[in-house]
């Protein structure tokens, strides 16, 4: 068992982190390529102000938490706080970042991390129940929307139990291995699922740019689809 844990904390962790980093980098490069190479020469205006305003507004979406789908929105907001802080700043994780990335982050303290973890788990449960029980949410939810939530629950629950032997029904090593493997699975999935919004969220906001269509494209598409002398 210890050999498995060593493997999961060593090469497998490096691999997962690498997949996530490279995958996100690929998204970033492709989007920047679109902006600065494919479209740049033709861009007539760039909505910098709107981008900045929107990004800041949604980083702290206070205005959006009081209206429409209030429970789901608030659960989602709370979930993000835990999902960003705990993986990055929990004392046990800081060691990992220092070992693999050479970055020393501050610890948020174990007590606070515990509270955050419990809140995050509850928030995910609210999201999960909403997805299954609220008809209008279920109607547009895909399998991946539900299964990702379950997968996100795993590292939080197993991490909490591994850190609190009093509640832990399984041997510590088993629980810790579950924690490692589920967290790594999540890291690997980041670039391939909606979790990639970590990077892409900034590029989705700029639809103004995509409204600036490519001149002449309409004619070329019409010629391809409808033939040379195409009529309306």
């Amino acid at each position, binding site marked *: 068992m210890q050999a498995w844990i060593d493997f999961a904390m060593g090469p497998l962790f490096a691999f997962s982190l690498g997949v996530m980093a490279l995958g996100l980098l690929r*998204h970033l490069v492709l989007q920047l390529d679109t902006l600065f190479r*494919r479209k740049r020469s033709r861009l007539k205006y760039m909505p910098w102000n709107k981008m900045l305003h929107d990004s800041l507004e949604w980083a702290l979406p206070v205005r959006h938490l009081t209206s429409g789908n209030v429970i789901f929105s608030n659960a*989602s907001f709370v979930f993000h706080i835990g999902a960003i802080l705990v993986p990055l700043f929990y004392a046990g994780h800081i060691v990992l970042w220092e070992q693999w990335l050479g970055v020393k982050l501050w610890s948020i303290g174990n007590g606070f991390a515990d509270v955050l973890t419990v809140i995050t788990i509850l928030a995910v449960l609210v999201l999960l129940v909403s997805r299954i029980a609220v008809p*209008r949410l279920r109607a*547009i939810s895909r399998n991946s929307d539900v299964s990702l939530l379950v997968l996100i629950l795993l590292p939080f629950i197993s991490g909490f139990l591994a850190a609190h032997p009093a509640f832990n029904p399984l041997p510590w090593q088993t629980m810790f291995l579950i924690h490692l493997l589920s967290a790594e699975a999540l890291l690997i999935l980041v670039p391939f*699922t909606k979790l990639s*919004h970590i990077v892409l*969220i900034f590029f989705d906001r700029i639809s103004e740019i995509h409204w600036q269509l490519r001149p*002449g*494209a309409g004619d070329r598409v019409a010629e391809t689809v409808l033939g040379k002398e195409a009529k309306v």
Partner: protein
Amino acid sequence: MAETTNSGPAPSAVIDLKSRLPYHIEGNGSEGRVERFLDAFAAVLEHTDYKPLLDSYCRTTNKCNRCSVTCPVYQVTGDPRDVPCYKTTLLLSIYQRYFTLGGWLNARFTPNRFELTEDVIAEMAEVFYRCTACRRCTQECPMGMDHGLITRLGRYILSLTGIAPKALQVSVREQLEGETHNTSKVPATAMLHTLEFLQEEFSDQFGIDLDVPVDKKNRDYVFFCAVSDYLMEPDTLLGNLAVLHAAGDWDRWTIGTGNFDGINYGLFYSDWHLERIIKQLVGEVDRLGGKNILIGECGHASRSAHDFVPVFGGAQTRPVVSFIEYTLDCLRRGKIKLNPDIITEKVTYHDPCNMSRGGWIVNQPREILKSFVKDYVEMTPHGRNNYCCGGGGGLVSIDEIHDFRMKVGGKTKADQIAATGAQICIAPCANCKKQLKELVEFYEIPCEVMGLHDLILKAIEIPGGKSAEERKEEAELYAM
């Protein structure tokens, strides 16, 4: 696109779209609709810039359902198919399944894979036109996804497959390939007759004889309004003329007889038409050597010119000025005077989505209105966050869906107008005006819908002409 041919779509029963959606036309017949849709999609991906956007949206679409609470259509129907994200997903699933490696792999190894069928195409043809393209949902999307843009892309690909509303298609055909080059088939001579009528009317009202400048070269402004204004909205045009005359800019503007229609239905459903119509408009301004493009009271004409003349207009594009901006400029400089004692009714203002959503024209009309209207009241919500009239995205032109526009699309707006208790609702947009006039009639709301310049026409003071007071008395006498 290799994936398309390798994993061709499964054959499915041909659906009789014509009986299901009688207002749609299908130029190319109904055979092989699925293949044609995919071919069109492939051509669009090859020649346009939509691909990176679709890639990003495919990944980030979160299905959080925030958009549903903002959508006036969904609020009324409660039908999951009306959730903006659901519509977007329809198109994204097709993209992902047939044009990405992941989708291709997924289709090989999962049992419940998505397939494009006749059913899906019929559903798209229906739900993409149950959206008024007001883009209100975009503001509430945490990811910032522009469902309006995707819905429009879906309509574009459908139109290449031969599926588009007859009303829009016929108008665009006349505008681009007909003899009159405008959507309402108004010949230049008929437009000139209307101008003569407007001149007589102006003379009756103000006691001033006008000679509307037609085809004058090298003027500062070339004027385009929704061509339907010449047929249905004489007061809006009279208001425009009054402002131009009162401001002393009579020698600075002109109307072209070659092309005088600002309407651009391409904005609603086709990049191809959008670009060609813009080029036609710019061509007329080139012919006249005009310096600015002045767009009358019309939401989508304003937006299509304002946003797309720079994109499609070539190297020498010209500034696009909305008539509302022009009037406000005149007011601020003291070039026109509006009598604050004429309008005693309670007035509210409806923001046309195409002007206000992007934040372009929100405060300008309010500044004008508040300068001469005593009892001004806002709708809730308003401005950038307004509700659509229910006829946006070209729906107002489709008479066959009058019921949908009244009972579903415009229900929220009707409630909003009724809640203000206003006697006059200002809507500076040809589309909104038509829809709102039908709405207040349908719901029997005691409110008169008119354009901004219709109201300005009542209150404007022109030196040397009859005063606003006199005109009001005359109008009251005439009404009795």
